């Protein structure tokens, strides 16, 4: 059975992550929306191309380019992306035009680019890559679905390298709808405590994180993906039991887990899930990341980016620590995420 190694990562986020894993993080508890640190797009696109593309597509291309470059591989055997909301900049644009102009005088550009698989197919066109090309759109497990699919292919030796990524973009209108629906915390309601949440809803953001997965360990290897599991719906107690069973199924004991990365997002309504899972690992160093990345459907890809970097550097940045535990060495790591009680993912990685 083939193995799965993370051999390259590219990340566009609310932190300065394009140029490597940050040593310091920007933390702003006062805001309900974290703006991304924009990459220098001119390093990647002509100004004309740049104007034509929505930011999700641009960020996806930047992140995937960085990931492939780092792994020294520009011809993956598969390209798989995940995006919960898809290309909402273009779909908002097209929908507004339909409504505002009463279905007249429309042009196809934004419709064409509103398709969920725009990022994956743009990467394929740019690379001339005729391989397998999938896009998953299942809320908070959109990225893990891509990871799951990639691992299925690497396990079965159907592929030797798979480019995967999670991409999410936000628009002003969708942001206003998410506030109305109670998904984003109200304006001016901070400071927000992401770890010890006392209010409902979350602090949002957007981003793109890509990974080049290969079946061979090499100099650029960050970590090995041991397993990933997706469950649509659980109670907090079931989530905790699931995490344990997941680890045991991988022939590990709970105490062999050296660190846990949890998707705490500051939503008091659903925080119980992370607390329930965390409880069984009170002996292990625990980390959180959505106070630096914000919440979005593929924020868990940022979580994997954090986890992989910690395994590589063997150091946990103090900004990301959720407890005071530490270990002399970090070997096995569990990542757990959910969003609003749905789309639970368990990921196990190792050095």
């Amino acid at each position, binding site marked *: 059975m083939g193995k799965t190694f993370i051999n390259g990562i590219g990340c566009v986020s609310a932190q300065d992550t394009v140029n490597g894993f940050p040593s310091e993080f920007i933390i702003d508890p006062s805001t309900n929306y974290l703006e991304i640190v924009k990459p220098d797009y001119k390093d990647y696109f002509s100004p004309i191309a740049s104007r034509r593309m929505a930011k999700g597509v641009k960020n996806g291309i930047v992140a995937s380019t960085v990931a492939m470059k780092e792994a020294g591989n520009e011809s993956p055997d598969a390209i798989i992306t995940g995006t*919960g*909301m*898809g290309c909402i900049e273009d779909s908002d644009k*097209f*929908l*507004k035009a*339909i*409504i505002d102009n*009463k*279905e*007249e005088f*429309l*042009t*196809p550009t934004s*419709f*064409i*680019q*509103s*398709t*969920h*698989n*725009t990022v*994956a*197919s*743009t990467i*394929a*066109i740019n*690379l*001339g*890559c*005729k*391989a*397998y*090309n*999938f896009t*998953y*759109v*299942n*809320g908070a*497990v*959109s990225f893990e*679905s891509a990871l*799951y699919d990639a691992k*299925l292919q690497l*396990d*079965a030796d159907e592929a030797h390298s798979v480019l995967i990524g999670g991409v999410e973009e936000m628009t002003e209108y969708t942001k*206003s*709808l*998410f506030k*109305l*629906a109670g*998904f984003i915390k109200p304006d001016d309601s901070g400071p927000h405590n992401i770890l010890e949440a006392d209010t409902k809803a979350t602090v949002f953001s957007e981003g793109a994180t890509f990974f080049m997965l290969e079946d061979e360990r090499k100099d650029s290897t960050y970590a090995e993906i041991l397993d990933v*599991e*997706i*469950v*649509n*719906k*659980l109670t907090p107690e079931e989530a905790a039991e699931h995490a344990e069973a997941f680890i045991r199924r991988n022939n590990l004991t709970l105490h062999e887990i050296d660190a846990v990365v949890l998707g705490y997002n500051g939503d008091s309504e659903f925080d119980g899930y992370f607390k329930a899972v965390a409880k069984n690992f009170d002996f292990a160093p625990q980390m959180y990341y959505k106070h630096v990345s914000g919440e979005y*459907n593929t924020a868990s890809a940022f979580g994997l980016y954090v986890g992989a970097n910690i395994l590589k550097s063997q150091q946990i940045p103090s900004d990301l620590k959720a407890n005071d535990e530490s270990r002399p060495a970090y070997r096995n790591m569990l990542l757990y995420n959910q969003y609003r009680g*749905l789309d639970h993912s368990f990921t196990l990685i190792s050095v």
Partner: protein
Amino acid sequence: MNKGVAITGMGIISAIGNNVEENFHALTSGQKGISPTDNIDTVHKGEIKFGEIKKTNAELIVELGLPPDNNFSRTALLGTLAAKQAVENAGISDVNSYRTGLVNSTSVGGMDTTENHYYEYFEKPETVKYIAAHDGGDVSQKIAEELGLQGFVTTISTACSSAANAIMLGARMIKAGKLDRVIVGGTDALAKFTINGFKTLMILTDSYNTPFDNDRKGLNLGEAAAFLVLESDAVVEKEGKKVLARVIGYANANDAYHQTASSENGEGATLAMKKAFEVAGISPEEIDYINMHGTATPNNDLSEGRAVLRVYEGKNVPDFSSTKAFTGHTLAAAAAIEAVYSVLAIQNGVVFPNLNFKTRMNEFDLLPQTEIKHKNIDKVLSNSFGFGGNCSTVIFSKD
């Protein structure tokens, strides 16, 4: 030949019927489901026809027994109906009695509710519930919830090849021993978003679509949902399940040519078919019927036809037809309804007619099967292609 993965149940709702039997009856009696829209308030009402399901959302809600305060999009309503049929057809009483997953697919998701309430959300509090119903994942969560399914749930969105890819992932998961049972398929409702999108691309016909005809003018947009239940051989054996047919081959390839247009020579489609034969472990000559993507756009039918000719170079092209003239192009659901049709073709030994065909295309010598044809069918190949150069092939076989 690869033994493949067993199909033990199917469910469908489309413009030509509310269940498998009604769809089969329409296909074999030549009744197309293309009509002016009754349910959508679009300014293009008078000029274009659709593969519309005539049930209203209110009727679907009653049929599904949903509470009045539900926030189901039409895509979720159609998907739930078809998925429930599939599970019932497979004789499953406890959906969680085995490791069961759901691999759904959709291209519009809850766009039909979003476009109706887009500017109302701030004025009408009763519409706010639909904000959460916009994304594709919400559709799948609702279907899973209605089935009482707890387990692996995901959604694929690769435009018009989506459901083929859902079938493919499901079959691979069964093969890998990750699941014992998986419900796979897709759902898409008509929406002004896609109607206007395809209209701006100028690939909608003002009449009835005519796949593989020289004078074809484009597609009729349709809506549908369909699901298959795939089960492992262990479950089939243990439960003494009747196997309807098997998924023996599948592949996805990318044209890597253009966001919306297919390449002239059908490169991606050719690759998908060739890889699917490899996975199935069969030669192209073993196919008895090809259910073409055949959207009746000038670009698709030319590209797909060329791809089929490349795959069958020096060999006879099997009987083929597109069923889009019956149903319209149902986007993400297309490969799911056509999977049901492929199984029906195998079960009943029938090639469904390619309606509305008059004139052979200038570019090549391909003639679709225009009349219903009865013969033994062991293997069916089904093509589906989507935006982003997404090309998928699934091969079905008699058990």
